[in-house]
């Protein structure tokens, strides 16, 4: 394959990487350019990259000597990541100004992180996987500690970095094991090797898979590698938390799915127990620990841990239906999370950001529309039909039941009962408690439109499920049919 074809295959990624560098140069050399302009340019670039993915043909192609893979699964997940990144950057614009942290590097770093995510999703080799993952992680470590004058933000960034490095180390350790016992880092070769192996996989391989799974579990903040999540979510500036909670989760989940279903697809028996375990632990911990949180960002951290657990239920099934479930779940999760963070970013009283759950008291009286949107998002997160969250849960649970994982599905449903408790608590606080000080108005057109978009997606999913469901089905089919 010629270099030209390689470039075409990775055009969206290359375009974004180039844009990031150009934006960086703009910021450095045009002193008077505002962060807002850079941010808007970044959003435009993300949108254009999305268009490139959408319009691009030659799907299912392998480029750069097999390091990079373009397929339907990747396309679906990439578009999700781009949507998540774009929406969160749009939301962050005003927040950055309000928090006096509007350095131009911020949107640039987020674009770089997004490039990393796209690379992760398209990885067809352990090396390119690691490259993408680290590009994403490094950018995120920096933005987590973006408010250097804030102790909490610095601490959050440091914790994220230290724990993230440990996880990356584990990942590398596992990769080297796998390489040692297969002689290749390429996903295609790995898949062939595993498919042709008659006897039980060797010890090095099993330990390697365990370590790789652990490293990736950290990135999706699954229990027991979730410890960083609440602290980082709470400590990082809210615009950063919004970003962290949305796109990177989708990308990391896509990566986990690709790795486990692709090269390790024939070793389902080896990793299924691991995934079942972390799914159970994440669902239960996410649900129970969230009950007592009073800080809404911390609550969202536990909530995201729980959601990851639910999504993993689909992966645990190890089937095409399971992958479809994960894809649908992550798509819905993305919109729910973005919507909730739009509300959290709008939580400002007298120019000061507030993040206690009690600050939402009586929101239905002070800002009925926002309360209504938030209530819809909460009901969706709780998985109450007919909102989108229900379908997300339904797809993964159905896949689990079809795969014979009845206990997993039942425990998952019970965990979602507990989770429903704290989502409903927020609704109760908004609708039935006496109002406290109202939030500053107007919340800004960026936040309002992001909130409106995500809420509409969640509410209308029941009527127009096609785009997400069909896309996820195509993605799952592309992933599961390719390797076999």
């Amino acid at each position, binding site marked *: 394959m010629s270099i030209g074809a390689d470039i075409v295959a990775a055009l969206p990624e290359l375009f974004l990487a180039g844009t990031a560098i150009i934006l960086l140069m703009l910021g450095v050399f045009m002193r008077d350019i505002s962060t807002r302009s850079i941010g808007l340019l970044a959003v435009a670039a993300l949108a254009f990259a999305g268009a490139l993915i959408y319009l691009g043909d030659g799907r299912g192609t392998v480029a750069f000597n097999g390091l990079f893979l373009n397929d339907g699964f990747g396309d679906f997940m990439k578009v999700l990541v781009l949507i998540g990144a774009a929406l969160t950057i749009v939301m962050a614009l005003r927040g950055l100004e309000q928090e006096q942290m509007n350095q131009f590097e911020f949107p640039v770093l987020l674009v770089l992180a997004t490039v990393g995510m796209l690379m992760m999703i398209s990885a067809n080799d352990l090396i390119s996987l690691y490259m993408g993952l680290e590009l994403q992680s490094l950018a995120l470590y920096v933005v987590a500690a973006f408010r250097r004058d804030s102790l909490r933000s610095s601490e959050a960034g440091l914790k994220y970095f230290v724990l993230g490095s440990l996880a990356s180390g584990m990942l590398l350790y596992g990769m080297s094991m796998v390489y040692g016992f297969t*002689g290749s880092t390429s996903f295609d070769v790995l898949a062939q090797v595993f498919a042709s192996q008659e006897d*039980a*996989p060797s010890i090095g391989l099993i330990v390697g898979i365990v370590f790789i799974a652990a490293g990736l579990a*950290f990135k999706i903040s699954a229990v027991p590698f979730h410890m960083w999540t609440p602290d980082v979510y709470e400590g990082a500036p809210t615009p950063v938390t919004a970003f962290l909670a949305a796109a990177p989760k989708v990308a990391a989940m896509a990566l986990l799915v690709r790795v486990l279903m692709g090269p390790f697809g024939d070793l389902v028996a080896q990793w299924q127990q691991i995934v079942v375990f972390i799914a159970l632990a994440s669902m239960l911990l996410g649900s129970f*620990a969230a009950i007592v949180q009073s800080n809404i960002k911390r609550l969202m951290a536990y909530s995201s841990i729980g959601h990851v657990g639910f999504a993993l239920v689909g992966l645990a099934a190890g089937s095409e239906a399971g992958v479809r479930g994960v894809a649908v779940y992550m798509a819905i999760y993305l919109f729910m999370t973005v919507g909730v963070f739009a509300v959290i970013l709008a939580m400002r009283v007298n120019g000061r950001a507030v993040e206690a759950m009690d600050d939402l008291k009586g929101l239905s009286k002070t800002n009925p529309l926002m309360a209504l949107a938030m209530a819809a998002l909460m009901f969706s997160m709780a998985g109450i039909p007919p909102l989108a969250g229900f379908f997300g849960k339904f797809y993964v*649970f159905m896949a689990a039941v079809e795969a014979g994982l009845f206990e997993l599905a039942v425990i998952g449903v019970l965990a979602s009962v507990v989770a429903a408790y704290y989502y409903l608590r927020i609704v*109760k606080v908004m609708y039935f408690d006496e109002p406290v000080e109202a939030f500053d108005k107007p919340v800004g057109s960026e936040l309002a439109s992001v909130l409106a978009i995500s809420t509409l997606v969640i509410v209308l999913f029941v009527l127009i499920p096609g785009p997400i469901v069909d896309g996820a089905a195509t993605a799952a089919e592309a992933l599961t049919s390719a390797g076999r």
Partner: protein
Amino acid sequence: MSLVLIALLPFIGAILPALMIRAGRNACALTAGSVTLTSLILLLSYAPAVFGGEVIQARFEWLPGLGLNANFFLDGLGFFFALLILGIGLLIIVYARFYLSKQDPMGLFYVYLLLFQGAMVGITLSDNILLLLIFWELTSLSSFLLIGYWKHLPEGRQGARMALMVTGSGGMAMIAGMLILGNIAGSYDLTVILQSGEAIKASPLYLPALLLILGGAFTKSAQFPFHFWLPHAMAAPTPVSAYLHSATMVKAGVFLMARMWPALAGTPEWFYIVATAGLVTMIVGAWISIFKDDLKGLLAFSTVSQLGLMTMLLGFGTPMAALAAVFHILNHATFKAALFMTAGIVDHEVGTRDAKRLGGLVTLMPITATIAMIAAASSAGLPLFNGFLSKEMMLYEASHTYYLGQEWILPVLATVGAVFSVAYSARYAIHVFLGKERHDYPSHPHDPPFGMWAPAGLLVVLVVAIGLLPQAIAGPLVQVASNAVTNGTAPVVDIKIWHGVNAALIMSMIALALGLLLLWRYGTFVALRQRFPRPEAKDIFDRLVDRTAAAATFVTDGLQNGSLQRYLATMVATMILVGAAGFFGGSHGAGTRATLPISPLGLIGWLLLVAACLTLVFFHHRRLLTLILVGVIGLIVSLGFFYFAAPDLALTQISVEVVTVILLLLALNFLPKQTPVAEFAPRRWRDAVLAGLAGLGVAGLTLAITTRDFFAGSISEFHLANSYPGGGGTNVVNVILVDFRGFDTYGEIIVLGIAALAIFALLESSLHGKASKRLANWVPETARAFDSHPLLLVVASRALLPFALLVGIFIFLRGHNEPGGGFIAGLVVSIALIIQYMASGFQWAHARVRVDYHAVIGLGVLVAGLTGVAAWIAERPFLTSDFTYVSLPVVGTFEVATAMAFDVGVFLTVVGAVMLALANLSRIGRLAETGGGSHPIASQH
């Protein structure tokens, strides 16, 4: 299509009242009413077909991949329930028009009510259990809105939240149950599932599915032990209570049990779970109801009790009992809705619903009293009213059903339930309407306007009509509905007013007598009840929530206390556990490779390494010692490389060690010399154990891996074979670095450069602001040597410099064929320069080295990059190397490779990076050397 419209019309029409409220309250109610009426007429248009035994279906593809289709069907049971929902809904709309005051936002009320109505009708018409689930939870959501409608009442909030929590949880459980059920039956369509009852009952997953589905049904229908939420939801406006908590929503659970009857009923599990829950609920609900002073509380618990009765009948699992259940559903809906409406009228007109403050209303509000007393009579089961007929059927069924092998248990307990129900019904009639007229009513009681009592009146007309002519009025409806419940096995309905004297009649009469006796001795029973502890289910629920919260706090505070060390410990511990599971879980034997003998030299090196590491751990708080030990370890490792015949690695390792130790030493100069020991002993032990285990794990893995062959052969062969012919060098390591893996090296030097820039940026910031002030006032912890620049060292270092540089160049040049190369050469040159700084002082050296190290780094990267680009000119891929042999006089023939230019880049970058770090440390040093004054010799400028 019009079938779907029956369910969809209320949803679509729900926006109309919100729009019409501007046109006045009447218009608003009228639109809501006409929406409901249209649905009702549509439904009735199917009546001939349904009574003819047809099942009407409407199917739409929705999410076929999920098995979720928008399939609707209408059979007898669906028709029966939809009729109840729409019919009573219409009456409630009329009633609410008069009940709600001017301050209440009526438009919103009707919106919620219509939404709820649509969801309820949706449940009854769904042919797909997933669709049913969606409507099921929609009722929860819309009822949440309705119950919380009166926001100013605190108990309304509490009640709404608990109601949603309990029914929502049940709904979730039901999702799991439905999934399993659909999995057993192979379809999510009810019509299919209902036909595969045998397969479902035979499945090993029958019991879990049953339990989960019943979880949903029991919570919705407030069956014991989930009965506690219903009375607390009664803070809602009375029209809501009447509609949701008597006629419709709470019957959704009963409906579901009836719907699933062909698929699930008839097993011992079904009998004991469902019938027992129903029986207990019937008795407990009725007993509590007797002692409720709040009229709505009384009616709420009586509803719980009546629902228990229906559940019990369905639980019996016989077609006849199912028929009785259907009939009782109809009767209960009529008399209980009427009772609720009268309670609302009393509350509305008298201003209180407290039974203790009421009495003697019969003369003041005769119409209301008449309606209430007829409805109460039916509820008590007095002959000639419809409640009597279905209760007779229930008692008859109970009288010949064996429970736990005993014949007497059910009849006795059913009679006890009946006694209580007589008592509470009579209490409602007697304590409120009869007795002496009082003079302390909060407001003057009078009959309400026609529109308010008419709906209740219409209902009691039905009560009496069915009571008198049951077969003619209710017969066909009950017949089709029970046929649908039992899959056509229901007996032919023939309801008569008089069955002759039989067991049921005797039980009925006993119940009537004892019930009235109970009410006559009401005071005694109240006192009796006070003496026993009464477990309040709401308190138990609250306590359960509190306990869970406390446990959650324990978990979050214990695990998630913000300590990075703890997080790391958790992660490492997990990895050890999981790794061990993988290690010991896999099926693998001992290694296949032969082990090598232990050489004495290797053993000594190993012991030294272990000793150095252990010493380091024990003395880690003494930083200087730590640094020395780090150097020792590095030295042993590089000796190890020598031992394994890797001189290149050894050289690199040694030079890196030297540079690192020197730079660290310089940095340490400005830092405390001791690491504070503030650690908690148990934590140290924890860390020690974790570290030990992790070490063992890695050791075990290394052993396991080195004692067996890799899957693929080693890649060394390729490089050994191709190093000279392909890369023109005999030093394989160097050829790999600059040629085969040149791209990697290129990346590495860029990283090195970035790292140096990062050090620069970090140290730069300490030269300004607070940090610089601290530095300027810095007093070294230890006294400085008097002679900070010893003459001998200064002289020696200056003399050595040219030699050191020469050695560097030598190492660089021989790199391609012998151990050496750009990287090592760079380090050697850096060391030579560092020595100058150390010996003669920062200031002296800095004044003489006028090189911008940023530029050196940049140049290095650029040179390496350009070398790579040059390959493009020769139409080869990036960084392809080439070499040729050049003959020069004197020197002789030697090889020139493009890799050499690349190596120059590496060399420059390394020198630049090390020196940039050093230069910055030196700037800090100069800032700290407050007027140091002692200059080395030759301070001549």
